[in-house]
Structure formats: C-alpha cells, structure tokens
C-alpha cells in the first residue's frame, strides 16, 4: 500500500550522487582552508565570489520560492553597508558586532518597507522595489555625516581593530565571507526541509492550491521578504567593511547587486540551491576571461540571460536535473 512517508527523501542514481557529494565536500574543504593555500589576490576574488553567493541564495529564496521578483534588493545591500558604517563610526560599536546589528536594523526597516511594497503585485512589485531602493539611495546622499553624495571611508583605526596584522585581518575577513556563504546555503536548505519549506514549495508550485490547504500565503511571503532583507543586509555590511569605503552609487547599485545577482541565479537555475552555486562559478569564470572586453562582457551576459529564458528557463542546473542528474541538496519528499 502506498503511504506518504514524510521523512524519506528522493534519491537519484546513487553513484552519481555520491560523486557529486564527494566533489561538493572537496570544494567545501578547499574553501575552508583557502587562507592556507591561496594568494592574496585569489583570496580577494574568493571573498567577492562568496559574498555574491550569499546574495544570490537570498534572491533565489525570495524569487524562486515565493515568486516575489524584486529588482530592488540593492536597497538592503546599501542599507546594510550604511547602517554598518553608522553603527561602527558613530555609535562606537565594535566592528564585528556592528555587522549583525546592521542586519537586524535593516530587518526592522524592511517591515514598513515591505508593507508598502506588498501593495504591488507581480511585475509591479518588481519595479516598486526598485523605486524604494532609489529612495534609499537618494536619502543616503542627504546625510552629510555619512559623506552625503560623495561617500565616506572607514577610519583606519576601526579596520585595525579587527586584527593587528594585515594577514590577520585578511584571515578574519575571509572566514566572515566563508561563514556568510556557507551559512546562506545551509539556512536556505534547512528552511526548505522544515515545515516552512513545505509551505514555500507549495506556494512555488501553485498559490491557489497552497492557499486551499491553509497556507497563509501573504504571511509566509512577508516573513521571507524580511528574512532575505536581513540576509542581504548582513552581506552588504560585510561587503562594505571589505571595501572600506561607501558611496550612495556603489551601495545602491542596481547593476552590481540586482542585475548580476539575478543573472547568476537565473543562469544557474532558479528555485534550486545548486543553481546559484553554479551561477556564481560561471559568472566569475566569465568575468575573469572577459575582463578586458568591458561593455561587451555585459552585452554577452544580457544575451546569455535571454538565451536561458528562450532555451530552458530552468537554468543550467534545472536542465541537468531534468535529464536525470541527482540533486546535491535534497529538499523534496516523495511518495513511496
């Protein structure tokens, strides 16, 4: 007799899956040990890639599971960065504490912001979030204490307070990036395997069906919106600690924090945990190869995103999975 076993999870061909897990573990260990084998430049590149992975996982959770297509997540990258600078410079909070506090403050701001943004649906929501990000950018430029339109640098003494030596600082910074990225992947995975994940997956598959089974769609979406805002702001605070300088243009850049992140997720595979990982690897490989091409690189990226939508909108990972590749991060439950 068929019975619904909620604890068992789907399994692909065991050998391929074990190989995938093996590769995943090797990459994880290599990344965890990166400060001991990578040079200074490589470490910087890895930090940037890990930050983008964290941002991509947040956008993927928002868009891939709740269907909230936001073009305005730069609002929270910038907010995280600016709140971090304000807390560290003016409230005298230790640098490493200011990062999570900035994320919590951004989460509090995300509540009324989300309340306004949720008045718009679908594509209107997308552009509405963009307007809100612009409002944040224009307001940030109006604070003379934070450098106004021309921005501000983090005082050297504050950067020194992380660690005395340059090597020590780089080590600490790298592990923050590593924990951010690994934490984002783990958090999304655990969330999707929980009761909440069941609701999220139901919403992704069919909103009317989920609603008819008692899922409070609006509330779930709102929590995810605020949660991803906090995750995005946490990453934003770290990014601008690493850059040591913040300007309204850089902090609220739509190209950097929305376009690139969205392309990473969609090209890799929306609505999967592996997709953003594939997307980040591809994005940084392409950027490395095409660094000298400037605008042509961006044109190519735009064309690639369009091509994915025309050829297979599930993205690279989605297309492979449909052809029988097993998942690495299992979140489905199957009927036995």
């Amino acid at each position, binding site marked *: 007799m068929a019975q619904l076993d909620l604890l068992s999870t789907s399994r692909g061909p065991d050998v391929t899956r074990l190989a995938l897990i093996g590769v995943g573990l090797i990459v994880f260990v290599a990344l965890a040990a990166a400060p001991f084998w990578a040079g200074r430049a490589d470490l910087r590149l890895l930090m940037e890639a890990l930050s983008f992975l964290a941002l991509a996982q947040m956008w993927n959770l928002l868009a891939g599971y709740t269907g909230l297509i936001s073009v305005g997540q730069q609002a929270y990258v910038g907010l995280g960065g600016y709140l971090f600078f304000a807390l560290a410079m003016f409230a005298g909070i230790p640098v490493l504490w200011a990062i999570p506090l900035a994320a919590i403050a951004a989460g509090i701001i995300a509540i009324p912001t989300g309340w306004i943004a949720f008045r718009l649906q679908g594509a209107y929501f997308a552009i509405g979030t963009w307007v809100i990000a612009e409002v944040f950018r224009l307001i940030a430029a109006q604070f003379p204490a934070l450098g106004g339109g021309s921005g501000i640098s983090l005082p050297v003494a504050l950067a020194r307070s992380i660690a005395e030596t340059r090597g020590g600082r780089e080590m600490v910074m790298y592990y923050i990036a590593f924990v951010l990225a690994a934490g984002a992947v783990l958090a999304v995975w655990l969330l999707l395997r929980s009761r909440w994940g069941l609701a999220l997956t139901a919403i992704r598959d069919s909103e009317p069906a989920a609603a008819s089974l008692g899922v409070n769609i609006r509330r779930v979406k709102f929590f995810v919106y605020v949660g991803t805002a906090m995750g995005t702001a946490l990453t934003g605070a770290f990014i601008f600690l690493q850059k040591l300088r913040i300007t309204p243009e850089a902090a609220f850049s739509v190209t950097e924090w929305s376009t690139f992140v969205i392309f990473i997720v969609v090209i890799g595979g929306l609505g999967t945990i592996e997709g953003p990982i594939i997307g980040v690897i591809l994005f940084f490989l392409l950027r490395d190869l095409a660094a000298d091409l400037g605008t042509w690189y961006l044109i190519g990226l*735009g064309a690639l995103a369009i091509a994915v939508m025309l050829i297979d909108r599930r993205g690279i990972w989605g297309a492979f999975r449909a052809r029988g590749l097993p998942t690495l991060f299992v979140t489905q439950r199957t009927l036995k």
Partner: protein
Amino acid sequence: MEWINVLVQGVLLGGLYALFAAGLSLMFGVMRFINIAHGDFIVVAAYLMLVMVLTLGLHPVIGIGLVVILMGCAGYLGQRFLLNRVLDEDILPPVLVTFGLSIIIQNSLLETFSADSQRVPSGDFATASLRVSDELAVGVLPLAMFLAAVGVIGVLQFIFYRTALGRLLRATSDDPEIVPLMGANNSHIFALATALASGVVAIAGTMLAMKTNFDPTIGPSRLLFAFEAVIIGGMGNIWGTLAGGIILGVAQAIGAQIDAGYQILAGHLAFLAVLIVRPKGLFAKAKG
C-alpha cells in the same frame, strides 16, 4: 508668483512623463507584461533622433516621423519574434528578457555613442518663450511638447475606443483566450500593441532628445518615472496616466524648488504616498 511658475513648469514636465507612461501602460494593459527596457527604448529613440538631425541633417519633423516608423517596425518584430515566446502566466521570463535587453541596449549605446551627454539642437524654438505676465514666461518648446503629449494621448484614446484595432486590443486585454476563438491571432495583436506603444515611445524619446541632455544610462530612471505616472493615475485609465504624469512632474518641480537634490526624491515620495493612501491609483477605473 514664484510658486505659480513652479507649478506651470511641473505641469509641462508632467506631459512628457505621461508620454513615457502611455507606452508602458498600453503594453501592460494588453499583455499584462512590464517592459523593464522601456526607459532604454526611449533613450534609443533619442539617439535615433540625434542621428537623423545631426548626422543625416534632416529637418526635426521628418526626423520624428522616421524614428516613429523605425521604432514601430522594431517593436512589431521584437514582440513577434522575441517577447511573444516568453509570455505566459509566469512573470519572470518577460521581466528577465527585458532586463537582459536593457543591459544590452545601454552597453551598445555606450559602445557606439560613448558616455558623453548629448542633445539635439532645435534652433530658436528651444529658447523662445511666451510672456504671460512680467514674472511668468512659458517656454514655447515645453508648451508644444505638452500639447503634443495631450494630442498623442487623445489619439490613443480614439484608437482604443473608436477603431477596429482598438476593439481587438480591448478584447485581448479582457480575455486573451477567447479572442483567438473569434478568429484573431494573438501574437499578431500583441505585436501590433507593441508597435503602437513603440510609436509612442519614439515620440517621447525624440522630445526628450530636444528638451534635455541625455546619455546611455538614463533609461532606467525614465522607466521609473513612467511606472510612477501609471500607478499614480490608476491602471487602465489613459487620461488618469496624463494626470499621474502631471502630479509626478509637479511633485518634482516643488522638490527642486526646495533644494536641487530633492527633485527626484520628491517625485518618488509622492508616488509612495499615493501607493499608501490609494494603492489602486487616484483615478482607477472601477472594475467588475
């Protein structure tokens, strides 16, 4: 008197915003789809105008006509062969494809025309003004643009409610699944709607080119203005869109009067205020 001047400038600016909005609103009305590259299309029209007038040395009126025809054809083909392929219930593919187009257009313009700020000269017309009183003068060019905007919106209203094409567009807007049963071809209708919207975009872009300086990066903010005018006015009401554009223009003019840094912010805040108080817009048509 100073404030009356601000008000007049705001209203005139609002006419241009209403033109930006009309094309966006038309495409959303018929196809339920938002073109993220809308602002970049406006900028493309501005650059086409630049080529017509400066490179080819054509008269501005002929230039406008040619840009409208070019953009209309490009709109038809783009919809028919690219956008129609990604239109369905899922909103992500059209958002992403037009997002990709936006990046491609901005960077292609940058590659072709450089990042320098450009402007299309419109001769004495640009600086001539009508004196209303000692302290109030209205520029001829802004006034002509405002009247043209009202004219274009009037023509759109006429097409929508008095012609066979308008009936097809309205029917498709009401129920895209029934219309093909009556023998119509949806992908052709969608392409016609986009062609019409692109014609309006072309007029908006050529006016932008004559009114202010532009460069390849200003598209996204034009998209936001267009979007705000549509939402303030209420969806599905084209005269409401004109009113929305005017409200946005006046808000920006008032902001600019207080402090130059507040112009754009004041417009955004007016939009958010309308969204909070009346999320369906000020002049939304009652449905149902």
